[in-house]
């Protein structure tokens, strides 16, 4: 996205000073690790409501949407201002639930492709915390092959009728709107028959089911759409041209770990926030802090985290200055997953056997075990590492693309399961 810089732009120093003052006076310090833990539904709703207020606070303080043009409620500033804000937000509470996928990819897609009316209606509402947006992207039939979406949208006069199912929608049950990728044409190649719509979650015909994850979390949802009717004004971009948005959408999704559109307070790290749940406190807790092997793991975890932090700063800069292709965002995605994986394992090792079998007094150690149990989430959510590796190899290093069987055929002709006979043989 390109933003034109106003001539009378606020200097980074002035902005930082203003942000510092406002944050000190208004934004409470962080109390613990800022991730969605296992809360009761009531607690979770209360937390969402708090985060909406926190977002509103930042908006009122002129600190929301640093890169977003002023006419849509943002600040119209630069990457340097983003960094300054993140630095001033260090150690503070922030509305993490509203950052991803709300600010990006949802808001960034609206900014890139929305009509003037759509942008003016929704972007300020997102920045105010009034609207929480999610993505209706993956389907039960497949997550990685995003362009193979089978949820249909059929035109009926000025309306569209949606049928199908979407899955892995984070927090849909407490969110307001979603970007939804649909199939509008099965008689053309798969990438040419897609269209994107805005869908409110409270619309008639949309049924929601919450998925229980293996760590007990129920943050992800599946939606069933049955004759959901939405007006044509909810369409984003041209009919059947959804993949033009889709490629951008994928780019934003891959860059979310380092996106300048989302607030990420400096010092936040996968190791755990300072003072609470760090690797040092974990090792002390499990009686391993004087064990040189444990100390080496603590050091390894920290080196990995610092490398991730530096790469997360380097990639957006490299992409914005066109030193690297936008596809390099997948390097950041892969790095995040690789580092997260290692840190989950190190946390498990430092916690000791209590992480697997714990008493009421050892819930903190047990949490390391539960994290390890669901370690692969970071390598699956938001696109698998296998897809990221394909993108890095093919789009960054320019290696030959994988052979597929969906090129040059109408979507309806593409194999979507084994042929009938093969299925029988497999079952016998």
């Amino acid at each position, binding site marked *: 996205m390109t933003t034109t810089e106003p001539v009378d732009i606020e200097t980074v120093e002035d902005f930082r000073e203003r942000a510092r003052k406002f944050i000190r006076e208004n934004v409470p310090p962080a109390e613990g690790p800022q991730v969605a833990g296992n809360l009761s539904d009531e607690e979770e709703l209360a937390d969402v409501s708090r985060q909406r207020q926190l977002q509103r606070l930042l908006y009122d303080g002129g600190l929301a949407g640093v890169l977003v043009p002023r006419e849509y409620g943002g600040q119209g500033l630069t990457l340097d201002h983003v960094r300054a804000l993140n630095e001033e937000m260090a150690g503070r509470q922030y509305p993490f639930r509203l950052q991803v996928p709300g600010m990006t990819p949802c808001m960034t897609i609206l900014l890139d492709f929305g009509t003037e009316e759509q942008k003016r209606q929704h972007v300020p509402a997102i920045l105010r915390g009034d609207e929480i947006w999610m993505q209706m992207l993956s389907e039960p039939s497949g997550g990685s092959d995003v362009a193979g979406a089978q949820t249909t949208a059929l035109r009926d006069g000025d309306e569209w009728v949606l049928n199908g199912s979407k899955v892995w929608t984070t927090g849909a049950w407490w969110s307001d709107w979603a970007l939804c990728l649909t199939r509008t044409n099965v008689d053309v190649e798969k990438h040419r028959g897609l269209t994107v719509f805005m869908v409110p979650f409270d619309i008639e015909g949309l049924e929601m089911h919450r998925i229980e994850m293996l760590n007990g979390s129920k943050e992800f949802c599946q939606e069933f759409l049955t004759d959901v009717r939405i007006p044509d004004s909810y369409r984003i971009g041209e009919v059947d041209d959804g993949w033009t948005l889709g490629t951008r959408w994928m780019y934003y999704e891959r860059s979310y770990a380092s996106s300048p559109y989302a607030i990420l307070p400096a010092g936040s790290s996968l190791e755990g926030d*300072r*003072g609470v749940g*760090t*690797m*040092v*406190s974990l090792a002390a807790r499990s009686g391993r*802090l004087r064990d*040189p092997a444990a*100390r*080496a*793991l*603590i*050091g*390894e975890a*920290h*080196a*990995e985290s*610092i*490398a*991730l*932090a*530096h*790469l997360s*700063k*380097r*990639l957006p*800069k*490299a992409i914005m*200055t066109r*030193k690297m292709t936008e596809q*390099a965002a997948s*390097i950041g995605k*892969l*790095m995040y997953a*690789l580092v997260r994986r290692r840190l989950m394992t190190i946390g498990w090792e430092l916690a000791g056997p209590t992480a697997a079998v714990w008493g009421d007094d050892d819930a903190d150690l047990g949490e390391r075990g539960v994290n390890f149990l669901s370690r692969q989430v970071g390598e699956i959510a938001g696109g698998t590492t*296998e897809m*990221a*590796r*394909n*993108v*890095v*190899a*093919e789009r*960054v*290093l320019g*290696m*030959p693309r*994988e052979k597929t069987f969906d090129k040059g055929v109408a979507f309806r002709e593409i194999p979507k399961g084994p042929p009938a006979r093969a299925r029988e043989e497999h079952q016998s």
Partner: protein
Amino acid sequence: MELELTPDQDFFVATTRRFLEDRAAVGVLRGLRDDERGYDEAYWRQGCELGWTSLLVAEADGGGSISGRGVEDLALVAFEFGRHASPGPLVAANVVAAALSRSGTEAQKVEVLQRILAGEVVVGWAIAEPPPNDRLGHVALEAVPSGKGWSLTGTKAAVEAGGVASHLLVTARTGDGLTQLLVPADAPGVVATPMHSLDLTRRFSTVTFDGTTVPASALVGEAGGAAGDVARQLRLANVVLCAEMTGAMDKAMDITIEWAFDRYTFGRPLASYQALKHRFADMKTWLEASQAVTDGAATAVQDDADDADEAVSAAKAYIGHHGPEVVHECVQMHGGIGVTFEHDLHLYVRRVVLDAALHGTVNDHRLRLADILEARENPERPAA
């Protein structure tokens, strides 16, 4: 490679690169395999004229950086050194030049520093010691007051360029503190014995001191008060090593990617196999992260930031681990040809592996990070 270079830096890098392409070509490197010195003296002198040893030296002392940020400029040179597996004692020359410019006497500046800058002499930094004192920061060799000067007895290893150096900057212990002495290599009782090294052109020596005495004028900085200078020197050395490893990884990756496109098996290029593509993606990620963490360390050291030690140890621990992994993967991608002397790949593998072991192993730097973190979280317990 850093992302945002000034036009002067761009020119400086391009000049160094052209010079190295010509004077440190692989044929030259192979020709130096059995050379005692490991580099051609004229080559080193001309490199110094390009500014290789001036970047950390104050202008008043005849030095000067390219961008006003000498550590970052030096990292750019080191990256090119890695890309060409270049000969020459880049680490020692710069560390000692910086130390003399910062804490040396006028006489030391005139007699030694000026000649380092001109490329007329090389110097060694004698800090590391043989086992069991080979951990990062361990200094057992004592500097004992003797008359109006100092006496040294003990062993330092590995000392880069120890066999050809005119002087050695010796880091020694005095009671609880550290003392640095600039010792002429031909002082009585100093014996340098060549060691073996994994690199084709880098030369190291064991240096023994047997009652070697030097006058008080050999002191660099404060007697017993050199810990700050030594810490700074270690930071500088590790930034150079990290940048050099990253350059060597970058070159090994270039060679290997080209190979993957050119090499056909079963009627298709290696680059078309998903099993290999996925490994290339990981290697590319580790390479980019290595560059990012090196830049971060160079900036922190340049700024003398409070977290400079942390930034440096994170970089060395990260690259020291992932660097060898990347270049070994490059070898694996080549198959049999990758483990031959004939193929050039080993030049870069050697450089990465050697540098990973100098001035703190991966484990040393991981342990130091744990010390730093523990001290930060429990301020009453100071870092070891």
